[in-house]
């Protein structure tokens, strides 16, 4: 059914008792054209675009938990395309353009809010670096503005401008950046895929990948064997675990990233703000909670919870940037397992096995990439050729010496 003002009115007349579930709960068929492992944002978006853009509807998405139970429901909901490198920028800009038309496209309210993002800088060197990044963005046709201190003050007067060690000198501003209601992204894509015939199979864990004469023929799961012509992995933090079933050797390390939300407050933070002197970022949800986070915990982890030392560090950064934050109470904190790649950039590519496709390495930047990742991965699976905006995101780029090291930190996954 199509959601509209009329449907809300009509359902209200019957006391909202007639709403139907947004997707079916099918049993797995014996065989599919494409199986996608991972029912998170990227897996569901891939299924949606496979069906909608490329006409492949005999597809199953296998999810070991419930839909959207991984990082798509655990992030800080930020979307942006302020990347410098050729290998990244056109991809993330493609993603931002898809976000801009997404709700109309999949007929679901994802609360896309382009409220603008301020990347603060605190030194001359950092200003030069941000000016360079902004120029790089504009050369790609992406909006970017360099704001001085007073322009930032008009937008966000509550910041600590005169910090003794890290005074705020200005910001790189991307007006089209913003936030999205993350759960609704998973639900919207899931519903859209389901309506086009894709089977979303929850609580179905992949336990093995069956191969014959060098090709994947299907997967062993907790619901039995399911055959497929093509297998696509979008397993995020568990990529290595699933990849090992097909003997893939990957440039991935899993790390835990924490995020936090405060009690609901009246509107105060109108933008997304990042602290140039730390890794702190903050925005305010429509419910009023301040949503914020900082670095990963630095050690390898598969636990979806983090360390108190990182909690303390995050709070210190937050209060250093916004002194008023010290009066707010933290309501919840949580952790997600990140597939940290060795250069900080993702992989959307074929693998040494011809009908096995790989989507991983999103580090902690995967949410904003969801639409483009799904679109480009679907393109790769359907046509067996790389979409032009992901042509640098290859699995063999490390061997060839073509890493996409946006942060310039070398092969040190916990620093990206």
């Amino acid at each position, binding site marked *: 059914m199509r959601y509209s003002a009329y449907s809300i009115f009509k359902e209200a007349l019957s006391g909202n008792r007639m709403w139907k579930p947004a997707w079916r709960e099918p049993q797995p068929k014996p065989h599919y054209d494409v199986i996608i492992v991972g029912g998170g944002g990227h897996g569901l978006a891939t299924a949606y675009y496979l069906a909608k853009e490329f006409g492949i509807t005999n597809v199953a998405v296998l999810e070991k938990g419930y839909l959207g139970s991984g990082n798509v429901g655990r992030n800080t909901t930020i979307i942006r395309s302020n990347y410098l490198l050729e290998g990244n920028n056109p991809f993330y800009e493609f993603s931002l353009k898809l976000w801009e038309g997404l709700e109309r496209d999949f007929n679901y309210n994802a609360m896309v809010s382009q409220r603008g993002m301020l990347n603060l800088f605190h030194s001359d060197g950092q200003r030069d670096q941000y000016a360079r990044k902004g120029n790089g963005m504009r050369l790609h046709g992406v909006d970017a503005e360099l704001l001085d201190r007073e322009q930032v003050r008009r937008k966000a007067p509550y910041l600590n401008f005169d910090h003794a060690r890290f005074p705020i000198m200005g910001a790189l501003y991307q007006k089209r950046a913003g936030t999205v209601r993350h759960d609704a992204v998973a639900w919207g894509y899931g519903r859209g895929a389901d309506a086009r015939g894709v089977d979303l199979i929850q609580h179905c864990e992949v336990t093995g990948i069956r191969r014959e004469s060098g090709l994947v023929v299907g997967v062993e799961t907790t619901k039995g064997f399911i055959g497929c012509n093509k297998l696509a992995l979008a397993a995020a933090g568990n990529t290595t675990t699933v990849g090992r079933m097909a003997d893939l*050797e*990957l440039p991935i390390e*899993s790390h835990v990233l924490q995020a936090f939300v405060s009690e609901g407050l009246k509107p105060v933070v109108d933008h997304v703000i990042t602290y140039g002197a730390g890794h702190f970022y903050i925005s305010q949800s429509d419910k009023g909670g301040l949503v914020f986070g900082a670095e990963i915990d630095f050690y*390898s982890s598969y636990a979806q919870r983090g*360390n*108190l030392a990182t909690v303390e560090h995050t709070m210190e950064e937050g209060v250093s940037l916004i002194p008023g934050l010290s009066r707010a109470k933290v309501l919840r904190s949580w952790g997600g397992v990140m597939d940290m790649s060795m250069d900080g950039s993702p992989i959307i590519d074929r693998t040494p096995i011809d009908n096995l496709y790989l989507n991983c390495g999103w580090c902690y930047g995967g949410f904003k990439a969801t639409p483009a990742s799904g679109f480009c991965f679907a393109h790769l699976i359907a046509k067996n050729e790389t979409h032009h905006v992901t042509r640098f995101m290859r699995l063999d780029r490390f061997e060839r010496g073509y890493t996409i090291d946006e942060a310039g930190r070398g092969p040190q996954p916990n620093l990206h």
Partner: protein
Amino acid sequence: MASLITCPHCGTRPKEEFSIRGAAAPKRPSPTAKDEAWHRYVYVRDNPKGRYQEYWHHVAGCRRFLVVERDNLTHEVFGVTDAAELERAGAGE
């Protein structure tokens, strides 16, 4: 939760004193090794779930590189050994 690390030289210290280098399993190949060996050493990771050895640098203490063996699912710490000692013990086998 790996909040306290017992350094063999300095005793039990908070995690914040340490900087984490990463997986201890990859062994540095010889300078003349083939590109493939260097690629595996620099970029490819086993990334196991469970028991795991990692290099931790005691930056705010003895400044020694340590190998911390822990479980990356439960965050339980099993043991901390000086990396050089571990290397020597390995060479003596």
